[in-house]
């Protein structure tokens, strides 16, 4: 994927294009105008007098607007252009809008032919990267001032309607304007592109559903300003931290949207372009990490995933009662059940993570009502752990897909097919019990016990959950610990044997609290040791493991969200210096990406590359990476909730200097937190 792609974004509606504004989608270049998990434009290519346009500069500030400053011809031939063009782009009320302005810089009048090629393949986002012949019928219709493109398969129908503010010549492949401009004169045309999801009677399916109209541009501007002013204000001597904090707030604001099911609340979409949708794991972990800045995301996520909680056994969707979904999609392949995301439930971590999020949210917000309202869902999630998660009856959460055709084989966050492996590279036999799943289950039981005792009036259930958690902790520490290597096995295979690769997964165990104090130091030493820590962050898989590859998505690359959870875990176990080192490295990385943390970056050693190398096909922005700085900050400042209070214990590496996080919202009202790298310099 071209790293120079630029975007405007409104939650699950977005335009992704090359940096001159053109869209020319190919199998490996997933650009386009997307809505409802469908690509509504795959071609959007501008020429002036037959010449392609080159960008002089692009202004991308906040996802609301993009401005491209363009001249005809290739940049290498560029000499005193006689004309130029400004292309301005936004999403306004869910509609893609673009304004083109042509300038005649010549000292004499000029004739201009402005041509916009327009096309759509109506590809479902799940099919964008595949060779796929659409089974339905593509059609087009010329209109007075625009072009309608459509796709129909049985009763399923999508249309893209492009309209021009100025008189235009329309053919089936695009729009052409011919204008004569006097010297120094300019000409402007406004384009609107509507994405329609039609019923057989011609009504958009969303039009008759109760929901607020999608926000207009000025509402989105006001909303962003309000969002930024409500968030805690950060100041820090190290600019990289304030930059990544600000960028993350802006990106997270843009990723928020209101699902049809929950029209009055906002939750985070998981990322662009591959995951602008409702997800379980990503929305839970994003909301968890963002609790110090925007706890309302957690409440919406709990509600949304609770409504969609699994209720029946369904092999195609890997659904079981009480299970929290992995992903929901509105696209064609899901509609016709070529793919199972309606929703798909194939993840083993989202269900315990759901319980963890609800409990942590209550501790920050004091919103007891939500804990009471979602008691049934939470109990069902806890029940799922033992009844459906424990596949072998040995007390461990495992996964095994029943949908062998289009289901996911690895159902933790490392979900690529070869992510879970032995140190010697062999792949273990299912069903697998990865270590972090056991940590989540342990934590979920303890948090479930707290909620049962304090809010549900069920101390007997609380006692039972605590007993189960204690037994799980003991069992886990017996079966997963590799004594002669001093770390936890990545997983147990289907025969109960230890899968012995050294991987980042065990870092999550510190977050969960399942590690005894006398083992934590060994775990921490591995996490910050040279095999796992690259100098930029903790690798997903350690060097020296047979499948290690610095460009391996889950077998060598570094993921900021993974590092944030591990940093938080290290801090909880008292490893403040180690936590500070990782936080500093990740914040340092953000500086190389204009303050925006990528989903993942390569695991090369720092001394080899001297700068962090972007992972080629990652989402950008990606919600979990976007929220990671908030949890890193929480770890640096040692923010914990106790009763009605926010406790703070800043331990900040010297490089950060003074760190002030003002007006941290929560059940305590607002509190200021101030830490200094000088007061606690560890070296």
């Amino acid at each position, binding site marked *: 994927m071209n790293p120079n792609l630029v975007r405007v974004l409104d939650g699950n509606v977005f335009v992704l294009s090359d940096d001159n504004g053109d869209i020319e989608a190919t199998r490996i270049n997933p650009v386009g105008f997307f809505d409802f998990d469908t690509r509504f434009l795959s071609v959007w290519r501008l020429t002036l007098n037959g010449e392609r346009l080159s960008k002089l500069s692009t202004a991308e500030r906040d996802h609301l607007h993009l401005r491209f400053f363009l001249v005809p011809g290739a940049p290498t031939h560029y000499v005193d252009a006689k004309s130029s063009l400004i292309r301005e782009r936004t999403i306004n009320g869910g509609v893609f809008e673009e304004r083109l302005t042509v300038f005649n810089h010549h000292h004499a009048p000029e004739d201009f032919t402005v041509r916009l090629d327009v096309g759509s393949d109506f590809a479902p986002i799940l099919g964008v990267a595949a060779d796929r012949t659409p089974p339905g019928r593509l059609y087009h219709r010329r209109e007075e001032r625009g072009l309608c493109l459509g796709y129909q398969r*049985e009763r399923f129908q999508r249309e893209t309607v492009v309209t021009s503010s100025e008189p235009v010549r329309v053919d089936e492949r695009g729009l052409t304007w011919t204008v004569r401009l006097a010297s120094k004169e300019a000409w402007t045309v406004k384009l609107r592109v509507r994405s329609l999801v039609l019923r057989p009677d011609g009504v958009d*399916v969303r039009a008759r559903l109760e929901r607020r109209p999608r926000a207009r541009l000025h509402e989105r501007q006001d909303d962003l300003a309000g969002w930024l002013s409500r968030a805690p204000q950060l100041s820090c001597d190290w600019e990289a931290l304030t930059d990544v904090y600000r960028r993350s707030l802006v990106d997270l604001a843009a990723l928020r949207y209101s699902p049809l099911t929950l029209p009055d609340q906002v939750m985070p979409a998981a990322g662009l372009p591959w995951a602008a949708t409702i997800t379980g794991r990503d929305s839970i972990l994003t909301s968890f990490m963002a609790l110090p800045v925007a706890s309302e995301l957690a409440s919406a996520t709990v509600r949304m995933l609770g409504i969609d909680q699994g*209720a029946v*056994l*369904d*092999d195609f969707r890997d659904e079981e009662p009480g299970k929290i979904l992995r992903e929901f999609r509105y696209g064609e392949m899901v509609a*016709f*059940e070529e793919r199972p995301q309606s929703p798909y439930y194939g993840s083993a971590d989202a269900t315990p993570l759901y319980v963890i999020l609800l409990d942590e949210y209550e501790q920050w917000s004091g919103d007891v009502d939500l804990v009471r309202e979602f008691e049934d869902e939470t109990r069902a999630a806890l029940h799922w752990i033992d009844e459906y998660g424990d596949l072998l*009856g040995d007390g461990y959460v495992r996964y095994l897909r029943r949908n062998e055709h289009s289901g996911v084989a690895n159902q933790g966050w490392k979900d690529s097919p070869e992510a879970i492996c032995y140190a010697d590279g062999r792949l273990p036999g299912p069903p697998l019990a990865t270590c972090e799943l056991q940590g989540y289950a342990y934590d979920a039981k303890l948090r479930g016990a707290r909620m049962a005792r304090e809010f549900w009036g069920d101390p007997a259930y609380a006692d039972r959950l605590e007993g189960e958690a204690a037994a799980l902790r003991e069992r886990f520490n017996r079966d997963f610990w590799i004594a002669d290597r001093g770390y936890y096995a990545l997983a147990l295979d289907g025969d109960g044997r230890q899968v012995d690769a050294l991987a980042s997964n065990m870092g999550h165990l510190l977050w969960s609290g399942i590690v005894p104090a006398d083992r934590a130091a060994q775990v921490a030493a591995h996490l910050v040791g040279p095999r796992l820590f690259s100098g930029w962050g903790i690798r997903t898989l350690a060097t020296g493991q047979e499948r290690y590859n610095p460009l391996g998505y889950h077998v060598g690359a570094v993921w900021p969200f993974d590092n944030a959870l591990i940093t938080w875990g290290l801090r909880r176990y008292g490893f403040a210096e180690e936590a500070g080192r990782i936080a500093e490295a990740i914040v340092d990385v953000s500086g190389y990406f204009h303050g925006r943390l990528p989903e993942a970056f390569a695991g090369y050693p720092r001394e080899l590359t001297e700068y962090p190398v972007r992972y080629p096909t990652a989402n950008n922005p990606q919600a979990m990476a976007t929220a990671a700085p908030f949890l890193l900050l929480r770890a640096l400042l040692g923010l914990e909730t106790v009763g009605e209070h926010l406790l703070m214990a800043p331990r900040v590496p010297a490089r950060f200097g003074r760190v002030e996080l003002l007006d941290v919202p929560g059940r305590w009202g607002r509190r200021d937190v101030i830490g200094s790298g000088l007061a606690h310099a560890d070296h």
Partner: protein
Amino acid sequence: MVSDPIEAFFAQLARQAPGRLLRRTAGTIRFELEGTDGLDVWHLTIDNGRIGVDRRARQADTVIRTRRDFFLRMCRGEAKPLTAWLRNDITAEGHFRFVVLLERLFPAPPAARHPRALTGEPG
């Protein structure tokens, strides 16, 4: 004895709501079923774990419209409401969350397995 399968489906809902319906779910759904001889209307009132069924055309939180023959497929667990909505085999107006709720009213897919059925453990 009820012989029409659609009447039987609604009668069963009224007799005993599915256990997977949460007690605090509350709302109304109107089904409009298109047949060769006109439109059949069923109105559900869901409250406190119970479902009231009548045939009056009243205001509802969500209105679901489909053909009788397609509705029968949902009654048998052969078609899933959410994907049916995505394909326009059913249309919905009003509150979308009741479309999601339909998943808890209609039967599960036939022959689905407990995950332990694959591992040989007792389910």
